[in-house]
């Protein structure tokens, strides 16, 4: 039989010599490693100069705001800055201490001072986040104590409003008396601190965020699956059709990108609403009665349909770019080796598309987890996602700390997802294009 020769076997030669330590040196005796560092330093410095503008841009417009947001999610001095005496009293007395006369006096003094410099509203707002319905207690008390109270302060305050004696109120005030707080994160997970400082779940009718998080992730998973089911055949066609036809198809895929959001959304409303095209057709075909028209918009269905449409390109493009590089001879080889076309797809073609699929799924999922406008427009109330809640806190309730905490949780979830993906598939297997 044939002798196994490897004509490619190379002979390794050394550039310079070996010094006493056994490491390589250049011809003039300099350690090789050091020579390498020196010779590449210039190139690295130039490369740094080239990326510097982008780096600055990213720091200013991306890292800095995210840092500020993260800070805001654990920091709110609305109470502590404006109620200094009471804050000091809380610090000096451990939780569980009954408020003594000094505490009541601190409260009265702080309220008076805050009322005079008109920051009592800020204090009330901060308290209101912690304990709903307490804002008016503060503002009305502020009006009454502006001219000062006479001791005993406890009785004087209770006379203004008996609610001031509520232990839950005092517990809440203690909670907000430190500027740094985890209470927004607790609230974002439907948790709170009770009077004893223990973490408990909020009342069932107040639990919204966990449900919204779950809904966000479930809907995002459904949307990701939908884009996969629709996008995979499209990407395959794109990768195999002749250039002219595939260009046309590509335009169709990218069309939602290039269409104004309002046009796109109106089109979906025209199609999906109860008096819309699809319902008309179904009724006309006799599949449903006129009274049974389907509700397909302003609910979760609307959110899923519209978002699948918008996010489809993010699945198609990475898949397409991977599929284009899959040599058709792999499939031919598999067929010639005896595999049916289904086996060939399952064992050869599909595994080879996984890097694109992973990239597409990750993109679509992360984008839909943070999607805001489409659910707001076509989601109704059952199709709202966590991002809509964040927007609500930003623009309506103005509880930016809460918005920041929700966003930070979302960010953490995405990073965890990224990490899991890296462990399972490997980020370096990601093929975006």
């Amino acid at each position, binding site marked *: *039989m*044939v002798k*196994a*020769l*490897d*004509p*490619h076997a190379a002979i390794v030669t050394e550039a310079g010599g070996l010094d006493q330590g056994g490491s390589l040196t250049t011809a003039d005796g300099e350690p090789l490693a050091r020579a390498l560092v020196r010779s590449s330093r210039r190139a690295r410095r130039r490369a740094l100069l080239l990326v510097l503008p982008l780096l600055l841009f990213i720091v200013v417009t991306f890292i800095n705001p995210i840092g500020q947001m993260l800070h805001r999610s654990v920091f709110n001095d609305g109470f502590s800055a404006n109620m200094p005496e009471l804050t000091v009293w809380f610090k000096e007395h451990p939780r569980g201490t009954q408020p003594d006369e000094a505490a009541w006096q601190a409260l009265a003094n702080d309220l008076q001072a805050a009322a005079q410099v008109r920051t009592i509203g800020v204090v009330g707002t901060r308290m209101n986040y912690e304990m709903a319905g307490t804002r008016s207690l503060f503002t009305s008390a502020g009006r009454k104590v502006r001219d000062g109270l006479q001791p005993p302060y406890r009785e004087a305050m209770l006379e203004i409003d008996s609610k001031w004696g509520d232990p839950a109120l005092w517990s809440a005030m203690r909670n907000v008396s430190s500027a740094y707080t985890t209470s927004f994160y607790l609230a974002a997970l439907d948790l709170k601190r009770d009077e004893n400082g223990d973490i408990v779940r909020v009342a069932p009718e107040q639990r919204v965020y966990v449900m919204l998080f779950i809904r966000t992730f479930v809907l995002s998973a459904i949307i990701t699956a939908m884009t996969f089911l629709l996008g995979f055949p499209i990407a395959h066609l794109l990768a195999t059709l002749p250039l002219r036809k595939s260009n046309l198809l590509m335009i169709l895929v990218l069309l939602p990108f290039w269409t104004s959001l309002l046009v796109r959304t109106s089109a979906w409303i025209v199609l999906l609403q109860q008096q819309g095209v699809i319902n008309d057709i179904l009724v006309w075909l006799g599949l449903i009665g006129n009274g049974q028209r389907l509700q397909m918009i302003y609910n979760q269905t609307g959110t899923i349909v519209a978002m699948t449409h918008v996010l489809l390109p993010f699945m198609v493009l990475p898949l397409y770019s991977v599929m284009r590089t899959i*040599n058709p*001879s*792999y499939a*031919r*080889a*598999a*067929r*010639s*080796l*005896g*595999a*049916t*076309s289904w*086996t060939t797809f399952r*064992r*050869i073609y599909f*595994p*080879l598309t996984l890097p694109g699929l992973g990239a597409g799924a990750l993109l679509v999922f992360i984008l839909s987890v943070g999607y805001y406008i489409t659910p707001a427009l076509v989601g109704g109330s059952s199709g709202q996602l966590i991002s809509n809640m964040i927007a609500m806190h930003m623009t309506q309730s103005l509880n930016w700390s809460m918005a920041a905490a929700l966003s930070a949780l979302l960010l953490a979830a995405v990073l965890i997802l990224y990490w899991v993906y890296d462990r399972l598939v490997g980020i370096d297997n990601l093929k975006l294009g």
Partner: protein
Amino acid sequence: MTVPSGNDSFVMFDHVQKSYDGQTLVVKDLNLAIAKGEFLTMLGPSGSGKTTCLMMLAGFETATHGEIRLDGRNINDVPPHKRGIGMVFQNYALFPHMTVGENLSFPLEVRGMGKSEREDRITRALDMVQMGKFRNRRPAQLSGGQQQRIALARALVFDPKLVLMDEPLGALDKQLREHMQFEIKALHERLGITVVYVTHDQGEALTMSDRIAVFNDGRIQQLAPPAALYERPENSFVAGFIGENNALRGTIEKLEGDKALVRLANGELIDASAVNIREVGQPTTVSIRPERVEFKPDLMPADAHTLEAEVLDVIYMGDILRAVLRVADDDEFVMKYRNTLGQTKLTPGQKLRIGWHPLDARALDPV
């Protein structure tokens, strides 16, 4: 090797035609019978339809017209995975997401073979190409030559009776290519399989094949064993495509049986044997191999016509010398002669008379 005819052939192309676009024929009336155990090479320039023929045989393209038979059975409508034909692709087509072992296991798994038999066969196939140690590597971790061997092992592991190879060595460097040619040939002889091999490298075709089918323009120009192809080309294309060749243009002056007298454009007469010419007055191209050209009168047949030649250049090639001559207004006439002790020294500008045995000059179709 017996040349098959009619029904006892293993592979049979019967009046096969192929068109991709419905306007031009890429394969024009292909008739080809391949015997069991034969090593047949399809040789031809790029675009001559070799791959198309192979793809039709493998089942990836359908014949537009005609019939392809394998072992006596018409396989026109048999899908590729049921043909049981091994195939080696030019880029090897090893599945990149599988290890070498999994690549070899694939054809056995899809055949529903049990684990222990699979292991057996994989080990045997890998040993056959001396790649036993590389079983757990991925294709990307192998050199080109190693990938080539794995591709070969994978095409053979399920014991196909017929193996197709489409320019399997095209991506290797010269040294490795020659080595692999030798290995493939040895495997063919040891296993007794039938091989249809496609290449555009004539050297490869000549060293490996039992028979060579020279393709051009969708037709087989000549089908013959290597020596016959080189020594007795049947038309100008084959004469020019295989080996180095001198082509002299002229017209038939006299035709006597298979002896022809040809008048060249400048009026000189030469002797040739008639191959595919029919009548006096017809234009022709006479083909003479450079190593059959003589310039010493004692080596030429006594009554042969000789030609006036002027030496333009002499190239020293070690074992031989290669002289470029001007002959009958042709500046590219080549003569090769052995580099022996005391060989006559030719110098540029020197005039001499050249000649050849009439059997070595073949009067072919005009180009």
